[in-house]
């Protein structure tokens, strides 16, 4: 199971980094989403991976339990990344409508000769 989770985090991160390094807004947003999925799984596994165990203490604390804190952390992280992605999409749309291009880099001069949209 460690192998599955670890390679999933790795693949998501690699894909996310690749997409973030694109110049266009849409791939960058997708890449950031992939990165946030990767980090959510990563946080989830930071409290050790356990199967079929409750995230609460049993009576007298003798039985095993899975660490509940990463689950709380990951919930916070999911909510925040969800809200941030929504803001990012809105700002990207605003930037596209204002400037007529979805390129992420800020060019020195305002004319983008190779930009097909203009």
């Amino acid at each position, binding site marked *: 199971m460690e192998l599955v989770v670890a390679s999933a985090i790795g693949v998501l991160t690699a894909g996310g980094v690749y997409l*973030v390094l694109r110049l266009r807004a849409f791939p960058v947003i997708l890449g950031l989403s992939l990165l*946030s999925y990767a980090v959510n799984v990563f946080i989830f596994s930071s409290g050790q991976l356990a199967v079929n165990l409750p995230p609460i203490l049993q009576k007298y*604390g003798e039985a*095993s339990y899975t660490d509940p804190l990463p689950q709380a*952390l990951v919930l916070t992280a999911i909510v925040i990344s969800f809200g941030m992605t929504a803001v990012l999409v809105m700002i990207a749309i605003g*930037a596209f409508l*204002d*400037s007529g*291009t979805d390129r992420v880099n800020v060019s020195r001069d305002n004319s983008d000769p190779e930009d097909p949209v203009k």
Partner: protein
Amino acid sequence: MSHWIIAPIILPALLAPILGYVMRHDVTIARIGSIAGTIAMVAISAGLFASAAGGDITVYRLGDWPAPFGIVLVLDRLSALMVLLTSVLALIVLIHAVATNWDAKGVHFHALFQFQLMGIAGAFLTGDVFNLFVFFEVLLIASYGLMIHSGGRQRMRAGLQYVVMNLAGSTLFLFALGTLYASTGTLNIADLAVRLQQIPVEEAGIVRVAAMLLMIVFAVKAALFPVQFWLPGAYSNAPAPVAALFAIMTKVGAYAILRVHNVVFGPDIEATGDMAGLWLFAAAIVTVAIGAIGVLGARRLLPLIAFSVLGSMGTLMLAIAAFTPGATTAALYYLVHSTFAAAALFLVADLIVKRRPGDSLTTLPATVQNGLFAALFFGAAIGMAGMPPLSGFLGKLFVLDNLRAPGQMAWAWSAVLAGSLVTVVGFARAGSALFWKSTAFVLPENTVTESEEEEEVPITHEPARAWEVAPTMAAIGALAALSVFAGPAARYLEATSDQIIDRTGYVAAVLSNPDGLKPYPKPHDAEDGGYEGDIAAKDDDHTTGEAH
């Protein structure tokens, strides 16, 4: 338990929705509400500052849960100083924004402004690294809105870049926190400090990764090389009052390094050693150089100021990287100074740029009140560049005086001194182009003025009213006051840096339990259960957690 500690977070958090939902239709009411709230925040943080000045560390337990389990807010000299600095700066910036009508150029300026204050105050007060992440997000999401306030093509694109950069930084922050939790099993700063001391060097690999990841995240916020590249674009395209407020945002990163890398990953901790200081020092040297070269090479006024902010962050980080009491005192002095200097520069630039077509440093006919603007710019520029008599000179002298270690001195002194010289030249060139040559300049008939923001920005030719100039003067006045009262300020900051470096005092204050609750119940032993994964460091620290 005093409830005033949480007031700097609660007050803007409650005020912002009221401003956003109830007062948004009437700009006058929104202005009154926002300014009144910020004045109240200055008063509250002054009170907190006075109560922390005695040296007590006050802990506010949210939900009354004891420290390692619940989230705590910690008020010590450092956090009180930072919150006071934030609120005073916010008041200055807010008055400028209202006086120059910036706040009416888009919607929800005041609500976003208050949310921004909430995030910054929370980041300074919290005693939990995950909570620090949450407050970082609060201040960032408000800053995204403020950054693109009033719109415009160039600003929207710079805003998009700023958001993307910071979202990537946030993801990295979460990776760092996950690594830290996996290796220590806690996220409370004081508890982390205890556990880090118990991790032996040979098992410290993961912790070192977490320490470096956290340092990179804070370096993104503080705009250190090699993650400094977002700052010039963001600051020079943000509305000028917002850029002035952002002067405190880079300091949030500096504060986080000061706090976390002193208390948790301090240089005397075996697991991490002086690794953080070495990397910070090298990065800070390069940042100073980039800032200075950027100031010299800038062809527009706002990027020039943004690069000078970058240079000042480099100087600040040089002092922080030393991790000695003296250098930390110098860093705190320079931190207060550079916040006001950067704000003053952005505010005066706003007054000038409004009266010129664009902010390019070309010679154009003089604007109204050329002498006044020249004097203000001159004052703010000598503060930022580090010339006497303002506090920039004392701050840099203070920093250099404390960087005398053999491997340090040559690099730090030459970087700061050469950087200052180049910055002085850059500012002098900008000032002479803007104010001096322009008095004898008549626009030739057939010249087309090169204007980078050819869009909607209207040029006013009205003289600035007293209210518009007052915030800039207040910021420069703060520099002068910091220079005049350098002795008392340095003594206070010396006590502050002693408190930062005194790890045991912080840990004892946060982890103490006046109610007699047991700080650590019997930790559950993970080894006998059905865990499939078995991380050795985690099990170790369960047993060490029991020990105290």
